[in-house]
């Protein structure tokens, strides 16, 4: 058996960048990353790792699908080298993540999936690190009319079915569905493996398809259901009273009396 797996992966500014690197343009209502490189959304990396594990256990052909305004070839190459077999990039100005919403993104991805053709399994991250919305996976499944399971910490396939351990607030449940199916993956699944330099070199030769705005025949703006009317920096700074003492032990004791004086405890 060889499965066809599609992994949706979005490029985002490195979410671990310091707060100062996320410059907010309130007029244009967009965040401008300063000095932080683009990376694959960490949860999409988890999804790719899930796909590679399935490929190792039962065999699969993995297509990495990414949509964006301009995609870094280096970032894509590294992800593909980790274990994908082909990539489909949907690229162009109309696919600016600051302008698209979940509805337009899911529609564009659905059209791209249909270009790829037959598939058994679509894997997405549970949410993107920029929008944090967690909508695209379920939206894509809805448009494609296939079942969807969210928050996987483990994905296995067999007998035409997928078996998912789904993270719950207090544990996990096991959910099964017939393929084709879409699964969104959570961080608990595990990090994406690093590709070797050799694999990165070899990945350059793997098939890559690039589609532009005219290829999908969809006007993303017409599909939007959300509009961002304002964007601002969160206000959460507080005035911190630093408790000082000659020794750390004393500072610990003093903290108790300060908190007590102020009726915090």
């Amino acid at each position, binding site marked *: 058996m060889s499965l066809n797996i599609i992994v949706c992966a979005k490029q985002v500014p490195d979410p671990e960048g310091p707060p100062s690197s996320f410059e907010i343009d309130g007029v244009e209502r967009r965040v401008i990353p300063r000095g932080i490189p683009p990376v694959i959304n960490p949860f999409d990396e988890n999804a790719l790792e899930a796909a590679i594990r399935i490929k190792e256990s039962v065999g699969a052909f993995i297509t990495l699908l990414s949509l964006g305004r301009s995609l870094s070839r280096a970032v894509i190459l590294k992800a593909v080298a980790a274990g994908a077999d082909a990539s489909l990039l949907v690229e162009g100005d109309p696919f600016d993540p600051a302008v698209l919403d979940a509805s337009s993104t899911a529609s564009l991805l659905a059209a791209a999936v249909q270009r790829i053709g037959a598939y058994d399994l679509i894997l997405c991250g549970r949410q993107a690190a920029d929008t*944090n919305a967690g909508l695209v996976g379920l939206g894509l499944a809805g448009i494609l009319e296939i079942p969807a*399971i969210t928050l996987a910490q483990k994905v296995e396939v067999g007998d035409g079915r997928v078996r998912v351990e789904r993270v719950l607030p*207090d*544990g996990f449940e096991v*959910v099964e569905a017939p393929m084709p199916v879409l699964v969104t993956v959570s961080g608990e699944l595990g990090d994406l493996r690093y590709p070797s330099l050799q694999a990165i070199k070899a990945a350059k030769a793997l098939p890559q398809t690039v589609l532009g705005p005219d290829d999908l025949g969809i006007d993303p703006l017409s599909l939007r259901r959300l509009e961002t009317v304002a964007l601002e920096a969160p206000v959460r700074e507080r005035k911190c009273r630093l408790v000082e003492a000659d020794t*750390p*032990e004393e500072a610990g004791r003093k903290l108790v009396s300060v908190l007590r004086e102020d009726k915090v405890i």
Partner: protein
Amino acid sequence: MERSGNILVLAEMVENGKAASISIELLGLGRTLADCLGTGLSAVIMGDEASEAGGELARHGAEEVLCLHHPRLKAYHPELYQQAMLGMLRSSPPRVLLAGHTALGQDLLPRLAFSLSCGLVTDCVGARVEGGEVLFTRPVYGGNALATQRVTTAMAMATVRARVGEAPPPSEKAGEVRTLGVDLPDPVRLEVTGRETLEYRECPLEEAPVVVSGGRGMGGEEGFSQLRELASLLGGAVGASRPPVDAGWAPTTCQVGITGKVVAPDLYIAVAISGSTQHLSGMSEAGKIVAINKDPDAYIFKVSDYGVVGDWKQVLPSFTAALREMLKE
């Protein structure tokens, strides 16, 4: 009562058959929105038997509560819950559907929104009416920015974090509770074949009045047992940033943050946590925040009310001991 055009709260039950506290909070938020828009406020709850929770919702401000009953709705099932809601939403579409940003809300609302082609704003930390429109606020870029969004479709949906709405006090004058049977699809495509719950269950993190959290700087499991001791003294729960969870020093149920739990306790004690935006997103609404960190430049101090610069291994034991003394008095 005419339900179309209302604010509708999708309520949830907790294990003992009571309405979840977030659902009551949403009635508070829903009431504010409904009054501003001049509409009514209703609630819907699903289960095999939800009348008790339904009565509670009716006493806390819902003018009408629909209890959708079916034995197969006992536990959350994506397709069954979706079907049960769709019929009702199609026959009387609300203006706004509010749900908690909970495990259920995060899974069900996107399914409903895409089935009904309507806009959904997830993880809201605020909602208000401006110019006759509902505007929703939510953190983006891991909490580095706050976006205010409006939904351009006739029906809007939102999942809202805990403690954003304020629970209205119970009132003598209760709304009407109606029980409806529902038609469910047979067969469904998804099948839940097993479930495992973690044993580690002290006071639920989201409801704890005090949360004592540890970060990467705790260095291992041993540090967490000290945090547990402090938390139990204060009648609170233990939380963690993501690295300790990834490292297995603390169970996943402890993670506080944008992909963990959102907490808003009266007191949050952050030990050896640097204060990444992803973490702050989950705890910055706490009443008071105390930080212990050996790095004087750690960002956590900027968002705290009290701080000690020092090694937790030295600060924490004396803090806990002094607290124990104080509590004895």
